[in-house]
């Protein structure tokens, strides 16, 4: 459809010289627009072509700028007289600009001005029409817009203007892009076969979606069926019934091509039987006996023999029809040389894409692993090192995220607020953790299973408190602009900046915790209290203080993780419960009592989940189910986790 429009448009352009003479040369923009007033005010993708052609044919100098303003929703219609203006809102009124002269046309109250909103499809058509005006425009943004328009709606007519604009392009990046686009256009619409094959061969070194789409378009196939493949068909492949195409589909194709009679579906059989009941019988069989397939089929055959209904398609007819025809896919491009070159180029590109996709999946997996790690690392300390099951760990994550949200309420600058939020979240959850340890957990060290219950109580209480305070709505935690966007390595491999930040944060924590546990006095004391509290106490260490600090540290890290998770996903009162079970599994799979174990657990779970998703992309839930089943089995065979502690420290 689009191409037809452009052909018409091109034709119009070529005739416009003649048109200009016949039309009044002084016809101004407003007049042209008024002729198409309804279309301007409410344009449609398929109908707007005539209007644009007319505008271009009017050869007014301000057509290009009108098209741009129109595209950006800057054109308004005055309802009192139907005239079009550029307008800018000023309070309750609009400041109008005359489109022909560019001069101010006074103001108008808001209720008589209607904003004209071309939809996305129309904007694309306008963009394509603007290409010729914008390709060599001094403004870089306009040239980019023109190139975007070409890549969105490529057309044969664009080759020459595009090539002509390459020479004078000052920006090297844009020049490169213009050359690439010209290559794409040549590959599809090139004048000679050699030209096209040459362009196609150049494409084989690319990776991007656009190039792949160009090659795929050259390789577009249609499926066909015939007693034998017709002369002059550029066959892509012959389909074998049963292996390449299933019998039912193949037979339907035969029916569609009028090469075989249509099968009678059961509903039609039933309808035919119902319509032919005579004296309580159909085809000699009493109606009461038609409650099974065999009798119905017999009754129908009897009707068919009598000529009342078309006969059924028997398996024999079916097989014969299938075997006497050829099913094939044919390229729409008639020239085999072109399709062969494109096929070779596409294979090369796709092989490269597949390689990069593995890297991309691995990066996604790494990112997921770092999120799990971040969520679980606090737990690795409280559960792994101290052996305390803290079901409220998820709620500490939530508290951290809400801290980030509250900070943003007071500090509007996202970068500064993030810098404030991270330590503040640590402080808040550290405090909460210490309070919880002193008030509750301290009294339950000898009853680990009951810690689970008590902390679960705290968990539901905190969740409901958060709801009472912040409401049930998800709260925005907006990342600073430098964390927006993605790191684009190439067209296949890219990763959102925020995920990189989380990865870096995870690394920092890993280093920090290893440092605290292995290199500081606190770490030494923590390890000694964990291994033998009695002995540690007799060496002058205060186990109560150490337990409190350790628990605070684990909780504080959960708070920071909360800020990070809130930035990338959402802040709700229930966000903690999304992570708690997963976090426990991360710690258990990795091996309790060891930060490296948590890292291993998070990596295993992250990679496994992405791996399963890769093979079964349309079902994330199935991936999660299989992953948990795997974890259950894994723990059966390796109860101590991946990194199992040996010796005395491992004693339960």
């Amino acid at each position, binding site marked *: 459809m689009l191409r037809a429009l452009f052909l018409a448009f091109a034709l119009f352009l070529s005739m416009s010289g003649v048109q200009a003479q016949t039309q009044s040369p002084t016809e101004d923009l407003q007049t042209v627009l008024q002729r198409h007033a309804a279309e301007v005010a409410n344009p449609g993708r398929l109908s707007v072509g005539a209007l644009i052609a007319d505008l271009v044919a009017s050869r007014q100098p301000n057509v290009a700028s009108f098209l741009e303003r129109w595209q950006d929703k800057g054109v308004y219609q005055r309802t009192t007289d139907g005239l079009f203006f550029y307008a800018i809102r000023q309070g309750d009124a609009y400041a109008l600009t005359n489109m022909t002269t560019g001069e101010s046309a006074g103001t108008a109250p808001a209720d008589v001005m209607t904003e004209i909103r071309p939809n996305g499809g129309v904007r694309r058509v306008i963009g394509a029409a603007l290409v010729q005006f914008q390709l060599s425009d001094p403004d870089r943004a306009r040239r980019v817009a023109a190139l975007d328009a070409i890549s969105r709606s490529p057309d044969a007519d664009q080759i020459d203007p595009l090539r002509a604009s390459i020479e004078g392009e000052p920006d090297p990046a844009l020049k490169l892009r213009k050359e690439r686009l010209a290559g794409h256009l040549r590959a599809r619409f090139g004048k000679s076969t050699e030209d096209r094959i040459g362009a196609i061969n150049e494409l084989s070194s690319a990776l991007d979606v656009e190039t792949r789409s160009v090659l795929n378009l050259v390789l577009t196939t249609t499926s066909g069926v015939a007693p034998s493949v017709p002369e002059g068909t550029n066959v892509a492949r012959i389909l074998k019934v049963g292996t390449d195409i299933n019998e039912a589909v193949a037979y339907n194709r035969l029916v569609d091509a009028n090469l075989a009679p249509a099968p009678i579906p*059961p509903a039609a059989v*039933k309808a035919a*039987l*119902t319509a032919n*009941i005579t004296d309580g019988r*159909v085809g000699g069989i009493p*109606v*009461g006996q*038609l*409650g*099974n*397939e065999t009798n*119905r089929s017999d009754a129908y055959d009897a009707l068919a023999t009598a000529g009342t209904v078309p006969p059924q398609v028997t398996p024999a007819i079916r097989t014969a029809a299938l075997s006497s025809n050829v099913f094939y896919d044919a390229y729409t491009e008639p020239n085999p040389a072109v399709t062969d070159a494109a096929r070779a180029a596409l294979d090369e590109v796709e092989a490269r894409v597949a390689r990069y996709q593995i890297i991309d999946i691995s990066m996604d997996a790494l990112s997921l692993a770092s999120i799990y790690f971040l969520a679980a690392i606090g737990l690795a300390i409280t559960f792994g090192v101290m*052996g305390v*099951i803290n*079901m409220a760990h998820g709620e500490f994550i939530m508290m951290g995220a809400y801290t980030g949200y509250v900070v943003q309420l007071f500090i509007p600058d996202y970068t500064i607020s993030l810098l404030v939020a991270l330590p503040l979240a640590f402080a808040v959850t550290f405090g909460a953790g210490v309070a919880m340890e002193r008030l*509750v957990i301290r*009294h*339950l060290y000898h*009853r*680990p*299973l*009951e810690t*689970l*219950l*008590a902390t*679960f*109580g*705290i*968990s*539901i*209480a*905190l*969740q*409901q*408190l958060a*709801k*009472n305070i912040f409401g049930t709505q998800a709260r925005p935690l907006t990342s600073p602009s430098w964390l927006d966007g993605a790191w684009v390595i190439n067209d296949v491999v890219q990763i959102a900046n925020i995920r990189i930040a989380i990865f870096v944060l995870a690394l920092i924590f890993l280093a920090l915790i290893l440092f605290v546990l292995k290199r500081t006095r606190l770490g030494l004391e923590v390890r000694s209290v964990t291994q033998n509290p009695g002995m540690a106490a007799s060496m002058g260490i205060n186990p109560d203080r150490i337990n409190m600090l350790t628990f605070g540290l684990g909780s504080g890290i959960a708070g920071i993780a909360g800020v990070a998770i809130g930035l990338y996903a959402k802040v709700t009162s229930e966000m903690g*419960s999304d992570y708690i*079970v997963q976090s*426990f*599994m991360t710690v*258990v799979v990795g091996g309790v009592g060891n930060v490296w174990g948590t890292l291993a657990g998070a990596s295993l779970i992250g990679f496994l989940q992405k791996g399963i998703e890769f093979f079964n992309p349309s*079902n994330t*839930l*199935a991936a*999660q*189910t299989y992953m*948990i*089943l795997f*974890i*259950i*089995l894994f*723990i*059966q*065979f390796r*109860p101590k986790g991946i990194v199992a502690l040996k010796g005395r420290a491992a004693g*339960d």
Partner: protein
Amino acid sequence: MTQGFLSKNPSVLWFLLVLGLFTLGVTVLSETAGVGLISTSFVKTLGKTLCLCLIAIAMDVVWGYCGILSLGHFAFFGIGGYAIGMWLMYARTEIIVIKSLNAAAIPPTPEEITDAVGQQIFGVVGSTDFPWLWAFSDSLFLQLLMVVLVPGLLALVFGWLAFRSRVTGVYLSILTQAMTLALALYLFQNDSGLRGNNGLSGLQNIPGFERTPQAVISLGFFWASALALALGYVLFAWVVSGKMGSVIRGIRDNESRVRFLGYHVETYKLFVFTLTAVISGIAGALYYPQAGIINPAEVAPIASIYLAVWVAIGGRGRLYGAVLGAAVVSLMSSWFTGGGAPNIPLGFYTIQWTDWWLVLLGFSFVAVTLFFPKGIGGLFDIIVRKGDQK
């Protein structure tokens, strides 16, 4: 179950007596008996509570007596519900379908009936075919067998794997939690064959009893639940008494020591785990026809944690404690969240119980764990001890 067993355990008789009186009282006060002091919806609530008490005593046996803190028993409860729900849905839909197909001029074929039933049941998940899981859904007997067999087999396999590898303590808790999470996630998928997130619904309409009012049906289920609870109570009381009971408690207190004494600890644990799973399945099969709908959220890990909380609040290691805990907490929950409790105006702020109930509940768990480790049941001890002192 000899005379000796009951005479040694007078509390069982007391419990049966109280339960019997309770059942009688509810029956007399219900709408069916004409008094109507207890509405049909409350009869359903009470019947459901009895089923929750049944799974609570199962939980008490596995945790309070045997020391296995299972955070997955609601998975078995849910499986029981799904098993009976499949038959209820199939049979009910079949009746509707046959009635409508019989209106046509030509009698329906079996295939047409199956197709139409599949269409009705699976239309909501965008499919029309019967999954293999529903192979026996037309037979009440086979589905009832599933209520017992599927939870039992799952518990047997899971328990065998876990106990064999000597997974104990909090690890086992997390593993059982993973089991119920995996089941919930599986059921949440629409192509699980059990209607995904929608679950099975309309279960209160019992095929063959279309003309019986819900007031009568609900009372029937209430009686059935009371009977099941009574039988379950006696069964568990018997299991935890005598020599086997001593071994089971021994495992809770010191597993290695019992093993060194020559007992095959794994077998005992497996027996307790599987038996309680089967009873949980039965409780679920009685619960969901009263609730009317079952969906995957029912087997989410949180449900099983609540179960542990009921038992803890009621008092572990005593069966009536579990019953008390389940009944008190679940009835109070529905009273507070149902807006039954009056709001407390403080002038500057009004405490609405719908908002604050969970906060109160959460902190009361903490208080119970810290200060009353024996739960509500522990209060009886104090009373009894005071009585002795006199």
